[in-house]
């Protein structure tokens, strides 16, 4: 431990002792991680192979039951839609955050941060109130002559609610990348004869891609595992994988099957993260160069 050591002392202490001291500081966190995250996840993986008998039967069941495959596909589709909606909505917003003065900028930042802080269940509750058949949006639609539009218990409703919850995760990485873009590059393109649209698509957009990648990956991964919003806003035709997992474990007590589903979700998440990691780092270097 060298919390107050001078540089000379620091150099004098052998590196191995230094790192043992540092490891000791991180030890409580690591122990907690192993006990409350590592052990439970290992239990689930184990049960997915071991219950009711050893073997791959739970995975065989998962990939041979049509409803599971439909839900798996739907989970990816809904997550993709949510990601697309988030990119489209977040892009102009994040750009404006970099372009306006400090006062307006603070206001826009607050708009992004407030949802972060408001309880997730409460936000979903407000979407229930807004989207229900007797809700705000439907009464507005009715007043302009559109009757009987169903929003709650549909995929559209789920996408609207989820995208709102996840939008800040898209805006923040986009903003941090856009803030670093040298606008003189755009000016240079303009002075070389590019129109505003061409300058945007050939210079600004490529430079902002690392932000889009980072945000899209975070949003997509978080969307895959969403539980509360689909459970409250969705219906039987918009069930996502998380709900199936919960159903297998809590209602049917099928730990093996539920575990297998969970492992599928977990593997999908980590594969995406692993694929995105190098991509994001490489692009980021280009973007900041």
């Amino acid at each position: 431990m060298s919390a107050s050591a001078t540089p000379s002392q620091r150099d004098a202490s052998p590196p191995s002792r230094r790192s043992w001291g540092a490891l000791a500081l991180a030890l409580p966190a690591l122990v907690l991680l192993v006990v409350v995250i590592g052990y439970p996840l290992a239990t689930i993986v184990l049960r997915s192979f071991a219950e009711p008998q050893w073997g791959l039967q739970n995975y065989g069941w998962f990939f041979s039951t049509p409803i599971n495959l439909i839900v798996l596909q739907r989970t990816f589709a809904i997550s993709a839609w949510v990601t697309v909606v988030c990119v489209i909505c977040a892009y102009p917003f994040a750009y404006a955050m970099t372009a306006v003065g400090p006062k307006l900028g603070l206001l826009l930042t607050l708009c992004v941060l407030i949802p972060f802080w408001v309880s997730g269940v409460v936000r979903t509750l407000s979407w229930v109130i807004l989207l229900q058949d007797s809700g705000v949006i439907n009464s507005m639609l009715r007043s302009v002559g559109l009757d009987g539009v169903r929003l709650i218990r549909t995929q559209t409703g789920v996408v609207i609610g989820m995208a709102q919850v996840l939008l800040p995760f898209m805006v923040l990485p986009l903003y941090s990348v856009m803030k670093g873009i040298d606008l003189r590059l755009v000016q240079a393109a303009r002075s070389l004869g590019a129109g505003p649209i061409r300058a945007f698509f050939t210079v600004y957009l490529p430079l902002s891609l690392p932000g889009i990648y980072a945000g899209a990956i975070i949003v997509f991964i978080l969307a895959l595992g969403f539980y509360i919003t689909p459970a409250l806003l969705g219906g039987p035709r918009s069930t996502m994988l998380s709900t199936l997992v919960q159903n297998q474990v809590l209602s049917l007590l099928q730990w093996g099957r539920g575990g297998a589903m969970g492992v599928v979700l977990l593997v999908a998440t980590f594969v995406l993260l692993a694929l995105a990691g190098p991509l994001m780092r490489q692009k980021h270097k280009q973007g900041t160069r």
Partner: protein
Amino acid sequence: MAMHPLTRVLLGLACILVGLWLVAPTLVVVPMSFNENKSLAFPPQGFSWQWYQNFVTNPEWSTSFLNSLKVATVVAVLATVIGTLAAFGLDRMRARSAGLLRMLLLTPMVVPGVVLAIGIYAVYLDARLVGTMTGFVLAHTILALPFVLIAVQASLEVFDKRLETAAASLGAGRIATFRTVTLPLIAPGILSGLLFAFVTSFDEVIVSLFITSPYMKTLPVQIFTSITRDADPTVAAVGTILLCATTILIGGGLLLLGRDRRSSL
């Protein structure tokens, strides 16, 4: 970069729409909470305080609120201590091992909630921790830890280590240096970690839904079950109270941040 006036108008319009979409929907709970009828249908009828009264007097609501408050307080303290220690540890490690450990410690943020929930539920069933205070505190602490780690690491990154050297060269011991130099300078990071940890625990619902019992419920669990069970406007009253509390918290946080910025200039 000079913007075309039309682009400017369109951009402004897009921002207003997105900003409204982010903030406005949540505000709908406020009028609903004063509804006279036991319904969540819009528009609300009449005016009454009965749902706020119900929140205070109905033990189902008030106990779950107190439970959440207790759990979140303990979690905030625990996660802050453990997370700050870990941040110091990572700060003193070689870059490669620090990066690896950091990634490990941040995994609770990306593991799908339900997968974690069934895992913890399975372990808690064996360890008889379902529906216990200890169970909630343990699960929430690990979920809050990444936020503390990120906040404290960020403030350690900008912290000038030469100040510690200066204090040591002026004769301050390790503990004195830590107490009088290091701690005050990274205090804003620790405080925002504390706040984040509190909110994370206070809001956590997925794992809580699995490890709850009829005798030990937290507020988000109570809200969730109430929404799925019936249209009780008490949830709207609770939502309004939480909304006000968060606004005050954010306001306080911003003030702290402003003070921090000024003092570091």
